[in-house]
C-alpha cells in the first residue's frame, strides 16, 4: 500500500508539472474577446485589426498622406456609446474609406461599406452597349464570362468579364484554333472586377512560349506595419496544351479593371507580344483576407501586396502602353474608340511588323 501510494504521488507530481503551462494558457485563452462589444470596443477592434493586418499603410501614407494613428484620433471623437449601430457603421465605413482601397470592406446588416473611388473618380472609358454591338448576336461563348467573335478585318475579339473559373483549357484551345488565321487578337477586360488569380495566369499562359516572371508578392508576417515576408516571384509558364497565341495581342484596360484583372494586366504587360491600350487599371494589388468585430460585422482588408516585374506596387493600377480615352463623339456615333484603336494598331503591325 505504501509503495502504491508513493508511486501515485510521483505520478501526480509529474502530472501537475505537465499541466502547469496548460492551466496558465487556459486562463489566458479563456478570456473573452479582446475588445468589448460596445461602440468604442468595436471601433478599437476595427482600428486594431487594420493596424496589425493591413499591408499598405506605408504606401497610403506616401501617396495619400494617410496616417493611421491620426485617423484613430480624428474618428474616435465621433464615437460615442449613445450612437445607433447604423450611425456607428457609417463612421467606421468612413474611417476605412480613408484608405481608398477597393479590397477594404465592412459587412453589416445595413450595407457593405466600400470605397470605389479607384473607379468612380475617373472616366469610365467603357460602354457595355457599344461592346455588345461589336460582339453582335452571333458571338461564341467559350465559358462563363468569356465571349468572342472574329471582326470584319480578320482580328479576333475576346471579352473576359471576370476571372471566376469561367473557362477551360479545351475551350480556349478551340477558340484559338478558330482564330488561327486571324492577324491579331483584342482582349477586352474593361470593367472586369477580378476573381481568382490562378484563372488570370491560366489565360495569360496561352500567350507565352517561355517562363516569364511577371511580378512579386509577399505577405504580412507580423503585426508591425513593415513586418513582411520575403518577396516571392510570380511566374507563368507556357500553357500545357498544344495551342498558344504568339501573334499580336492588344489588351483593352480601364479603371474598372480591379484585383485579378489588375494582376492579369501586369502579367500580360510582361509578355513581348502584348500591348496594353486604354486607361490605367483600377488597382487592387493586395490579396484580401477577412476578420470579425465583436459585434459580428465582418471586415475585409488587403493583407498580401503584389508588385509588378520591376517590384513596383500595383495597388494603384497598371499603366497602359498606349494611353487613350474614349471619344465622346465616337460614342455618339456608335464607335468604340478603344476597339478601333486596337484594330488600327494590329493592322499597322501587319503592314509594318
Amino acid at each position, binding site marked *: 500500500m505504501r509503495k*502504491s*501510494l508513493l*508511486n*501515485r504521488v*510521483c*505520478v*501526480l507530481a*509529474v*502530472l501537475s508539472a*505537465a*499541466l*502547469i*503551462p*496548460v492551466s*496558465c*494558457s*487556459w486562463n489566458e*485563452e*479563456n*478570456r*473573452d*474577446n*479582446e*475588445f468589448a*462589444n460596445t461602440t468604442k470596443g468595436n471601433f478599437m*477592434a476595427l482600428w486594431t*485589426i487594420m493596424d496589425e*493586418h493591413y499591408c499598405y499603410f506605408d504606401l497610403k501614407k506616401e501617396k495619400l498622406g494617410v496616417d493611421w494613428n491620426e485617423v484613430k484620433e480624428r474618428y474616435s471623437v465621433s464615437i460615442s456609446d449613445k450612437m445607433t449601430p447604423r450611425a456607428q457603421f457609417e463612421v467606421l465605413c468612413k474611417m476605412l474609406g480613408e484608405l481608398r482601397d477597393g479590397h477594404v470592406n465592412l459587412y453589416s*446588416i445595413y450595407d457593405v461599406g466600400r470605397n470605389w473611388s479607384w473607379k468612380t473618380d475617373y472616366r469610365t472609358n467603357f460602354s457595355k452597349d457599344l461592346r455588345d454591338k461589336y460582339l453582335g448576336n452571333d458571338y461564341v461563348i467559350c465559358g462563363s464570362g468569356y465571349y468572342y467573335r472574329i471582326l470584319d478585318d480578320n482580328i479576333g475579339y475576346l471579352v473576359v468579364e471576370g476571372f471566376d473559373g469561367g473557362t477551360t483549357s479545351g475551350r480556349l484551345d478551340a477558340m484559338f484554333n478558330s482564330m488561327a488565321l486571324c492577324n491579331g487578337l483584342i482582349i477586352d477586360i474593361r470593367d472586369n472586377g477580378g476573381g481568382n*488569380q490562378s484563372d488570370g495566369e491560366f489565360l495569360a499562359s496561352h500567350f507565352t512560349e517561355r517562363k516569364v516572371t511577371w511580378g512579386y*508578392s509577399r*505577405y*504580412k*508576417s*507580423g*503585426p508591425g506595419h513593415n*513586418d513582411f*515576408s520575403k518577396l*516571392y516571384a510570380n511566374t507563368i509558364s507556357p500553357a500545357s496544351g498544344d495551342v498558344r497565341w504568339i501573334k499580336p495581342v492588344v489588351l483593352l484596360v480601364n479603371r474598372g479593371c480591379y484585383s485579378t484583372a489588375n494582376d492579369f494586366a501586369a502579367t500580360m504587360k510582361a509578355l513581348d507580344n502584348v500591348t496594353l491600350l486604354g486607361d490605367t487599371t483600377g488597382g487592387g494589388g493586395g*490579396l*484580401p*483576407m*477577412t*476578420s*470579425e*468585430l*465583436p*459585434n*459580428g*460585422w*465582418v471586415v*475585409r482588408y488587403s*493583407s*498580401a501586396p503584389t508588385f509588378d516585374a520591376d517590384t513596383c506596387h500595383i495597388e494603384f493600377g497598371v499603366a497602359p502602353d498606349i494611353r487613350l480615352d474614349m471619344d465622346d463623339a465616337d460614342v455618339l456615333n456608335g464607335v468604340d474608340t478603344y476597339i478601333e484603336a486596337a484594330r488600327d494598331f494590329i493592322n499597322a503591325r501587319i503592314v509594318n511588323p
Partner: protein
Amino acid sequence: MTDSCRCSRVGSILLLLLLALLPLSAAGQRNSWSLPGYRETVRLGSFKFGSAFARDTYLSASSYDGWALGLESDSWSGYKPSRLFRYGRLHSSLVFSSMKNSINGGSTLELMSSVHYGFMWPAVESDADDLLIGPAVLFELGVLYNRQNGNNPANAEGYLGAGLCVDNTCRFRLSGHELALLTTLYVPFAGMGFAPDYDQPYWYIYRYNEYGKALHFITPFNNPAFTFQLALAVPMGKSRFTIGSSFDFMTNRLGGHSRRIDNNMISVGFVRRFQVKDWNR
C-alpha cells in the same frame, strides 16, 4: 469567460481530483474489468456528443461555440510481462462540430481527428486499481472552416509530438455489480506543429512551396493541450457498456496567432475483449 468554459474547467478539475483520490478510497477488488494479458486486447468503441468551442484569430477575432458529434476508439494491448512498458494504449477520435458566434450567427465548422499511442508502465497494480503511465506519440489534426470568410476560409491546426499518457482503472462494487472507473490523460510535451506564418495565405503556402514557414517546434508553453477521458464501465453479459465524458483541449500560439479548440463531450461505448491466437504454438 463563458459559462460553458467555466463549467468545463470546474468539471475537469473535479475529474482530476477523482483521478487522484478515488483509487485510494475505493474498497475495491479485482473483478472482470482487468488489464489485458499477454497477446490480449481490450477494445472500446464509443459514440460521443457534446459541446465545442473554437477561437482562431487567423480566421476571426470572435469566439464560436456549438454542438459536436464524434466517434472514439480505444484499445489496451498486453505485451510480454518482461517488458518495462507492458501495455500499449491506442486512442483515436474523430469529431465534427458546428458552431456559431453569439452575435450575428456567423458559423464555423470543425473537423478534428486525433491518434494517440501510449507505451504504458504499470506504476500501480492492485486488486482495487491499476495506474499506468508512460511516453506517448500524439497526433492531432483539425480544420476550422469559417463560412463568412473569403480568401482565408479555413485553417488547419495540428501537431505530431511526444508526450505523456496516464491511465487509471479503479474497480469497485455497487449493489453487487462489478464496476470500473477508467481515467486517461494525454499531454504533449514536444513536437512539430502546423500554423500559417501570421497572415500567410494558404494559396502562398501551396504556390511558393513555403511549408517550412508553417511548421513550428511546439512545447507545452506554445502548444498547451491535453485530452482527458473518464468512463464508468458497467457489465453487460460478457462485455461492458461504458458511459463517460471526454475533454479535448487544444490551443497554441504559433505564427503570431492564437488558436483554441475545446470539445467537451459525453460518450457512450461498448467494450470487447479479444485474445490474439498464437499461431506458432
